[in-house]
């Protein structure tokens, strides 16, 4: 019998949620027995090669590429899970959500302490190859349908583990008090 296939990605996130996934420690060996990975930074597969069972999304959507990747995940995964505060509510990147984009960009590229004197031509990144920033950082479920949510910054390793096990085995998800946290 073939194993369930998992894909993961980090959109506007910090990879902390992926780190937390690795925090399951030696259970990672069990995990490898249980599932195969497809598109994911874990195995560096860049494009989907087959339909996956579970997609884990870290990070919200702050630019057009995030939206593209998220929609690609929705198309290629049967179940999509928002992992962590950024995927769930935008997280820290969304702190910019009520500041006008122009101000954000000017602070980042023209006026900020690290760029003030380093960008004499006052260039703002504007190449067609570059993804373009959205008006605000969007939680993933405000763009595509998300099936499950694992809160935390990052979600506790035990929560991710419990969730994966529940999804793979079809058992009920265990949610002890200590594992569900928003920070």
């Amino acid at each position, binding site marked *: 019998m073939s194993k369930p296939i998992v894909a993961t990605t980090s959109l506007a996130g910090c990879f902390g949620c992926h780190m937390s996934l690795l925090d399951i420690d030696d259970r990672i060996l069990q995990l490898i027995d249980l599932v195969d990975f497809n598109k994911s930074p874990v195995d560096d597969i860049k494009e989907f090669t087959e339909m996956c069972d579970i997609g884990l999304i870290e990070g919200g959507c702050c630019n057009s590429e995030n939206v593209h990747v998220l929609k690609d995940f929705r198309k290629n995964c049967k179940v999509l899970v928002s992992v962590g505060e950024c995927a*769930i509510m935008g997280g820290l990147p969304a702190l910019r959500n009520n500041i006008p984009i122009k101000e954000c960009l000017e602070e980042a590229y023209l006026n900020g302490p690290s760029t003030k004197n380093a960008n004499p031509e006052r260039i703002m990144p504007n190449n067609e190859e570059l993804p373009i920033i959205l008006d605000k950082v969007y939680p993933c479920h405000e763009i595509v349908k998300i099936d499950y949510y*694992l*809160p935390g910054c990052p979600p506790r390793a035990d929560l991710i583990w419990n969730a994966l096990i529940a999804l793979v085995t079809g058992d009920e998800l265990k949610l002890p008090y200590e594992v569900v*946290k928003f*920070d």
Partner: protein
Amino acid sequence: MSEQVKFTIDGKACKTQKGTNLVEAAKENGIYIPVLCHLEGIKPAGSCRICNVKVNGRFMTACTTEVSDGMVIENITPEIQELRKIIVETLFVSGNHFCPACEKSGNCELQALGYRYQMMVPRFPYEFEEKEVDATSQKFYIDRNRCVLCKRCVRSVKTKDGKSIFAILGRGHQAVINIDHELANQLSDEEAQEVMNTCPVGSILKKERGYVDPIGSRKYDNKPIGSEIEQITNL
């Protein structure tokens, strides 16, 4: 000795002194009714509506209702729990609650209610409305992104001659907490700390202080809000 009254909560026989409000009465009997705007010792406001229970079949806020003999109270039913969860979720999307970056995280009563009601994500869209941070007072700042308008500060923080330091400004969803800076600046450090403790969320914070408790040892890291009450055995 004042008069005893008997009542039931979810079928459990309870008793207390006459004149006690339902939140306290439940507490004395080892039952937790969730509160957010209520603060023991100050006049109840009944504004967050989380303590809604059914009293003899009618919805009432427990903090503003005095127990009376023979009352039949419903506290934990699917209908009531759903209402409370919806209120918690409403409060999460009505502000900008970035828990990971908040100094109050782990000690925040709103967050703790989110945990208690297993809010994995609010069902409502985030609006990210712009809110002002007012840091002009000397002793503390007020971050309106996190305010839930419980009015605890409005009701409890007064000067020695009884003047308000906090008040509401505006109405409806545009209402915010306003500070009288002149009066606020006259508070001592200890009083400023008291003010911060009054706030259930991370909206009023004392300046030059933050992230004091390490993760793992904060108030709601290991035990749900209300569990301290539920451990009390029936008196």
